[in-house]
């Protein structure tokens, strides 16, 4: 385990900023509980993943530089999103063609973390003093699971929550069908993936479906509402941030 980073920034991510501000608040609460006071740099916007995945690497590279300008002074950057962090870590180094950016971006990418990954792997904490007396099931986002290989961190934090009963999905590794631009280019296929995921979640008998990415939340919530399924969907930090 590395030294505790002195200066930590919260990267809200654009979707959380716009749709799930309570997730950003819960992230700050969770970090506070493990003894980390995170700054929220005012200039932050978006990591650029939607642009990159829609085929606009040049525009995404401009946002990578903006990300660098915003977060470079920090020892660690923490975001409540495996997907955005995977973009920073996997794709930023490819986007920065010029040598003067490359080293700085690579270095920042290495100290950018998804929140559960940060708590478990950097701080070495597995219990965050939360109590949540409910039966929940857990959908790890693909980018947390296979991109960052940190889904286990999120699951361990959930297991550390007092009175929480975790019922695993039959197919936790299956994509929920969001995929950004994919969800609107091929809504039929996206829906087919979504409906299987929701059926899997329902079969667990859980009261709550916990996930780790705003993209998955939008997709899962949208599906639950469309089919009037009595299951609530929350972000991991909303559970971990419980008193």
């Amino acid at each position: 385990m590395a030294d505790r980073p002195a200066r930590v920034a919260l990267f809200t991510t654009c979707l959380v900023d716009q749709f799930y501000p309570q997730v950003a608040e819960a992230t700050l609460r969770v970090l506070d509980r493990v003894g980390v006071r995170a700054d929220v740099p005012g200039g932050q916007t978006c990591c650029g993943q939607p642009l990159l995945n829609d085929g606009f690497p040049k525009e995404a590279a401009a946002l990578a530089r903006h990300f660098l300008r915003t977060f470079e002074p920090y020892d660690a950057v923490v975001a409540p999103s495996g997907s955005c962090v995977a973009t920073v870590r996997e794709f930023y180094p490819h986007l920065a063609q010029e040598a003067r950016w490359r080293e700085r971006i690579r270095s920042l990418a290495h100290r950018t973390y998804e929140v559960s990954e940060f708590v478990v792997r950097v701080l070495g904490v597995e219990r965050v003093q939360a109590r949540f007396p409910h039966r929940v099931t857990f959908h790890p986002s693909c980018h947390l699971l296979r991109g960052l290989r940190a889904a286990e961190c999120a699951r361990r934090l959930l297991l550390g929550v007092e009175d929480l009963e975790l019922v695993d999905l039959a197919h936790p590794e299956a994509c929920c069908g969001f995929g950004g631009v994919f969800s609107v280019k091929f809504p039929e296929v996206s829906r087919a993936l979504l409906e299987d995921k929701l059926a899997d979640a329902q079969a667990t008998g859980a009261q709550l479906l916990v996930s780790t990415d705003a993209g998955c939340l939008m997709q899962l919530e949208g599906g639950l509402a469309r089919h009037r399924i009595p299951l609530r969907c929350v972000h991991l930090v909303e559970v971990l941030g419980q008193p």
Partner: protein
Amino acid sequence: MRPTSAGFKDASARAVHDPALREAIVRVTGSLGVRRAQVTAELPHFDALRDRAKRIKEHTLAHLDRYLEQLEEAVRSRGGHVHWCRDGEEAVGCVVRICREVGARVVAKSKSMVTEELELNRALVQAGMEVVETDLGEFVVQLSGDRPSHLIAPIIHKRREDVAELFSRHLGTPPDAPVQVLTAAARAHLRRAFLRADVGITGANFLVAQTGSVVLVENEGNARMVTTRPRVHVAVAGLEKVIPRLADLAVFLPLLVRSATGQRLSVYVSLLSGPRRPRELDGPDAFHLVLVDNGRTRTWLDPDLREALQCIRCSACLNVCPVYERAGGHAYGSVYSGPIGAVVTPALAGGRGLLDLPFASSLCGACRDVCPLRIDIPRMLVALRARASAAPQARWERRLARLAAWVLQHPTAYRWASALGRLGERGLRRSRWLPEPLRAWAQARELPRLSSKPFHRRVRP
């Protein structure tokens, strides 16, 4: 490759509403996936094999010219002929010429994706020859005038009943015949084809530069029949199939077979090096290796896509892909379907399918995880998307992307856009009209609501 689908969007949307198709696909990909997981987990050094294979492929591709020349030399020294073909037309012309020169009337084929890519059968039939596919799945494809929908399970989309009905029409089996009767009928039919065939055509799983050997991996024994009984053996293979040494098979065979069918070893592995030699009892009188480029050099020259040439066509990525599972192979409009097909199709055909195939993925990364060569398929899909976005059709998307990038680089503009977005949302909710892509979203699920106060307005400035 001739385009056959009305684009991935329509074809996949239709497939999603075909529960029988999904069931047929899952039955095969599910069991292949389970067996793959079992037999790869039992090899403690499987990941080391993957790394080794990756290094060999990288090395081979870096020195492709040298290894291809070594291969040619080795094949020639064993009495075989080597033909270099720039594109599909040349390759097809070459095979047809070889068949004509030996007066072939009947040609027996074993399973080969590259000949599907070249649509070789059509040309041979047009040249007046009878062509018989001898792999059971490909035989069914041929009888039904269909196209393969999976790299190694070409009729994954068909049910047993479909085959029974087909065979009852063509081979005279009872319409409700059980599988054993069907396979026995195919076997009897194909056996006659082996005996009648003048030329046997195969693909190649690997070409060994050191020895000039064609390596064929199969389970039915038909490839062995096709390469031993007829007078002439023609192997058709893409340039990327070459590996340096015979010893490299110790790495690639377990990777391929375990990833593909979940077997420890396939029932047959044939290493064929040139035609029959003087004191040998069987084998063809003549051997031809047709080396096909058909877009491979272009792919090789492309730094973003060269990695696609490492693919050994095991199909593991198809079997784990959630999109392939719902869309089926035909939706890709190419003989190469699934995640690797979405890369290889536009790469080889110089952009065909470019506007939809690279987007036919949620980028969930399951393909990259399972690939024995660790091919970074999501990275290549994203690279191809960048080319699609340069197409004339994407003019408006380009403008929007530039505008979005500008706004997102200017925090003040972002805050203004955020406020405007809330006004716009209110207007849209009242009007009940939705612009794309919101309409596409709402087609499948409810729209998310913007929070009344975004987070950046909740924290101190």
